[in-house]
């Protein structure tokens, strides 16, 4: 089972559907902390250079099964966790994570991976001090994604689950299930739920409030 963060640093994660605005919110939080000259570090889901190529290859060829999809993301996470996240926490940084193990618990859970297997897989990772969950109806998430680009991607829409041959329908069904997974974890891991339909700056105000209440920011001053 995952341990609480016992390192000198603090760990903040954002979670939510694609299009929920979580990346924008953590970016603004990052900017705020940098502006205050705090020791802060940012890490993004699925961004390890080593693993990226394999993920791209797998997704492109649609070679991935739920198991290998899950494992390849866990590999990416382990690489970032052991080389960056944990050392930064030990070195007393505030570490911001755009998606964390909950993304895998939700997505891979929907894809049929056993809960206990997933929990074991990520058992080496500390539970964040704050997990911000951006709650958004899937119809709005869809609209936001499509504003940025013409179509949904195969895995993003959960097409591998065979829920529907229509990208949009599949996305909605997949998103509903992901949300149900998040809701199921919210209490166990103490998520802070934020209404992602609100204005960006209103959400950010809530985020900054939560962070400054729960974390003694003065302790993390950059020297």
């Amino acid at each position: 089972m995952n341990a609480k963060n016992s390192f000198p640093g603090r760990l903040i994660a954002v979670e939510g559907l694609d299009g929920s605005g979580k990346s924008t919110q953590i970016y603004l939080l990052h900017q705020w902390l940098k502006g205050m000259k705090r020791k802060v570090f940012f890490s993004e889901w699925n961004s390890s250079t080593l693993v990226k190529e394999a993920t791209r290859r797998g997704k492109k060829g649609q070679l991935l099964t739920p198991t290998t999809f899950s494992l390849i993301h866990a590999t990416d996470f382990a690489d970032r966790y052991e080389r960056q996240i944990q050392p930064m926490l030990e070195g007393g940084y505030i570490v911001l994570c755009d998606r964390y193990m909950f993304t895998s618990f939700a997505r891979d859970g929907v894809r049929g991976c056993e809960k206990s297997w997933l929990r074991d897989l990520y058992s080496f990772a500390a539970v964040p001090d704050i997990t911000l969950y951006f709650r958004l109806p899937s119809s709005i998430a869809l609209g936001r994604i499509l504003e940025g680009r013409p179509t949904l991607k195969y895995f993003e829409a959960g097409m591998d689950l065979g829920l529907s041959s229509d990208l949009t329908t599949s996305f909605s069904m997949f998103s509903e299930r992901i949300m149900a997974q998040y809701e199921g974890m919210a209490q166990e891991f103490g998520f802070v739920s934020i209404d992602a339909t609100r204005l960006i700056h209103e959400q950010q105000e809530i985020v900054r409030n939560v962070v400054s209440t729960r974390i003694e920011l003065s302790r993390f001053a950059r020297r």
Partner: protein
Amino acid sequence: MKSCYKSPPPGVDLSKLNGLLIVIEGPDSSGRSTQIRLLSEWLEQQGFAVSQVGLKRSNLVSAELEKAKEGNVLSPRTMSLFYATDFYDQMENNIIAALRAGFIVIADRYIFTLMVRDIVRGADPAYTKSLYSMAIVPDAVFYLKVSTPYLVNRTLEAKGHMDYWESGMDLGISRNWYTSFVKYQQRIRAEFAKLSRQYEFEIINGDRSVVGIQKDLRDQVEKLLDHNDSILGLSEG
């Protein structure tokens, strides 16, 4: 009917896997590949279709594993998860397909080598066990047990040098390759011994001639075939 150590991976139907899965485990230079080649030939001569699988042969991540081994840039956990990805990719795409088609699949090493390697590098055995809990239970696992002096000899004879990874040089046991090799292989053997009790291996004495070992293997596989003739659809003999 095949089973997995715990539950099967999502989307995998075990009910139509008619083939046999035979695993040969053992260290490098234990003569594994020779034995597998001879066993395959013998089975094929009897009319069985044989498919060989091994570690690090998947399309998905084998390039990454090669790169990582050269540069030594991965943490042990990242490395082990890469290997696990590779394993499940092969299991789901190659092993299962071959078993479904009624092949005899001979695996040149399986999860046990991966588990042992991780455990001697400090992995929590429970973590490793869970990671590989969706692996298909083989119909037989043969472990070629080779004594250390014999293995040292064979390695030097066959390669003319010692391999960095097979000597466990990444563990920092000793700066001396020979010493490191001996100690690393002892640790590996000790872990294999533990797994052999949990996972029911047939232990084959590997300190013998190629022919002697092969005879043992064939006798064991023969028994296995007798038990499974109906499954393989060979009831007429």
